[in-house]
C-alpha cells in the first residue's frame, strides 16, 4: 500500500489522536497521542490492509538540546513498523514530557517490545506502563542515571571496581 494511503487510513480512523504526519525522505510518519497509542498500534497490527506484523524497532530521542524544541515535550518514543505481507513501513511517534515520561507498553502486541522497552528505560528513563519486568538491559543495576539523555556527560564513568577515573 502506498505510504500516503496508510497515513490517510490511520488519520481517518483516529482523527484528532493523530497530531501530525509527514513523509520527509520517503519515510511515512505519524505522531500520535499517548492515550490513543495502544489502540493505534493494535489497529496497525490487526487491520487486514495494514497488517504491520513486525515491530522493527522501538527507540526514543531526547529533544532537550534540539534547537527550536527545548521547551516542548522532551522525549519522543519512536516505533518502526513493517508488514511482511504488504511490504510497507510506518513510523509512529509519541511525545512525552520529562516529568510524565510514561508510555503504555506494546508487549501484548509484539513480544520483542519487552526488551526494546527495557532498553529505552535503561537509556532514557521513559517508563512503560504495564511492562512485566522493567529493569535495565544494557547497563548494570548499580548505575545511576540514564546515559543517552542529553544531560548525561559522555565520559562520566561509574566504576563498580577499580579507580574512579
Amino acid at each position, binding site marked *: 500500500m502506498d505510504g500516503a494511503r496508510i497515513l490517510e487510513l490511520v488519520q481517518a480512523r483516529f482523527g484528532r489522536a493523530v497530531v501530525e504526519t509527514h513523509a520527509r525522505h520517503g519515510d511515512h510518519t505519524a505522531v500520535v497521542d499517548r492515550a490513543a497509542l495502544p489502540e493505534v498500534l493494535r489497529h496497525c497490527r490487526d487491520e487486514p490492509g495494514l497488517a504491520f506484523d*513486525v515491530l522493527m524497532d522501538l527507540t526514543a530521542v*531526547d529533544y532537550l*538540546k534540539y*534547537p527550536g524544541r527545548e521547551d516542548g515535550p522532551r522525549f519522543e518514543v519512536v516505533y*518502526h513498523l513493517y508488514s*511482511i505481507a504488504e511490504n510497507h513501513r510506518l513510523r509512529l511517534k509519541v511525545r512525552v514530557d520529562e516529568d510524565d515520561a510514561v508510555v503504555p507498553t506494546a508487549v501484548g502486541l*509484539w513480544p*520483542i517490545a519487552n526488551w526494546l522497552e527495557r532498553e529505552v528505560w535503561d537509556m532514557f528513563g521513559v517508563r512503560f506502563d504495564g511492562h512485566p519486568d522493567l529493569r535495565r538491559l544494557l547497563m548494570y543495576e548499580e548505575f545511576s542515571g540514564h546515559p543517552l539523555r542529553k544531560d548525561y556527560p559522555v565520559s562520566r564513568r561509574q566504576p563498580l571496581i577499580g579507580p574512579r577515573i
Partner: protein
Amino acid sequence: MAETTTRREIMLGEGSGTGTGQSLTVGVGPAHPAMHGIIRILADLEGEVIRKADVEIGYLHRAFEKDCEVGGWNNAIPYTDRLNYVSPLINNFAYASAVEKLLGIEVTERCRYVRTIMAEISRLCDHLTCVGAASMELGAFTVFLYMIKAREYLWELVEDVTGARLTISYGRVGGVRADLPDGFADKMRRAFKDVREVLAEVHRLLTGNRIFIDRMVGVGVLSRAETIGYGITGPLLRAAGVGYDVRRAQPHWAYDRVEFEVPTQTAGDNYARYLVRMAEMEQSMRIAEQALATIPGGPVNVDFEGRPIDPAAYVDQGKQGRTEGLLLVPITLSPNLQGQNRRVYERVNAPDKRVLLPSKETAYGSIEGLMNHFMLIMEGFGIRPPAGEAYFATEGANGELGFYVVSDGGDRPYRVRCRPPCLMPMAALHRMIEGEMIADLIPTFGSVNMIGGELDR
C-alpha cells in the same frame, strides 16, 4: 515441551520430572568459552532439561549511540565498524546510506556496485565465522579451521581494497574511501574459487554427518509466528519459512541489477539455519561476481597520459602557490589509498561538495579545493544535513540492519540509532531453549550468531 520424547526418556531414565524435584541454576557466562562474546544465561535446570532461562546482555555495551553524537557525521564510521565486527562493511554502508537519505544525495552508479560487492564479501566472512564457530562448539574443530582459512582469503581481498582486515572504515557519506584496486577481479576470482572449495569440503563433512544432524535437527525450534512476533529477520526468519530479505523487498545499491535467490527452509530449527547460511554464501558469491562483471566504468584501469610528476614535488608546488595548470597534471600515486587519481575518485564518490572531501590533487592543487577541504574538516563546519530524520535498512548478515538518524541541522549527529538484527533472536533465545537440554543450548546459541558489538552497541 510438555511431552517427553522417546529419545529423552532413554537418555533421562524414567523421563524428566521424576527426580528429587530440586532444580539447579546454572549460570552460563559471561566469561564463556564459546568465542561468541559475553552473554549470561541463567538456566534453571531440572535434570538436564532447562525449565526457565533468563538471558542477560550488556556486558559489551560500548556506548556506540552516545559516542556518535560527539563528533562529526563521518566520525561515526569507525564506531559502526565495530558494531557487527565480522561484517563491518555492511554497517559502514548502511550508516552512510542513512545519512545520504537525510541529505537527499545519490551516490554514483559505480559506488553502488562497489558497495554491493564489498557488502557481499563481508556477508561471506560473517557466515563463515558463524558456521565455523558453531561447528567448533559441537566438536567439529576441522570445520572451524577450514572456514577461518577461507575467511583469511577474503580478508586478504578486503585488505587489498580497504587497507585493513577487520575494522576497515571504508564507507563514507557520499561514497567510499577509494575505488577497487588494479587486479581486483583476478584476486576475487581466485579467492572465491578457494572459498567454494572450502564450502564443498564442509558440506561433505557436516551436512550428512550423523552426529551433526542429531545435534541440530529439531533443536532450538522457533515457530514462524513467534519468529515474526519477536521481530526476527535474516537467516533465522528464512529458516522458519518466510522469504523476507531486505535486498529483495527494498532494493538498494545494486541489488536490483543482479540475480540471486533467497534460500528458505521450513523447519525453523538449527539445521535449517545452517542450511540457509550455507546456501546464502553461494548466493553472495554469485551476487559479487555478477556485480563485478557489470560494474560501470569498466575495470579500474588508470592510464596516465602526459608526464607523471613526483607527488612530493606536486605538493610543494601547490603549497608555494604555483598552482597554474596543476589541476591538469596527472600524478602517479597509488589509485587506491595514497592519494587519488581524480577521475577514479570521482567515479565512486557523489559530486557533492557539501559532503565529500575533494580528491588530494584538487585539495593540494587549487585554492577552491583547499577551502572545500577546510570547510568539511574543521570543527563547526563539516557535513550539515538539514534537520529531520531518516531510517535506512539493509540486509545485514543477521537480518535487517537499520540506522535511524536524526539531525538538528548541525555538524554532529543528534541521534544515531542502530537497529541491531541480533537483539531479536537473543530476546527470543529463552523461548528456543526452554524445554531443551542444557547441551542443546550450545548449538542453538551458535546458530543465532550473536555478535556482541551489535547486540550491546
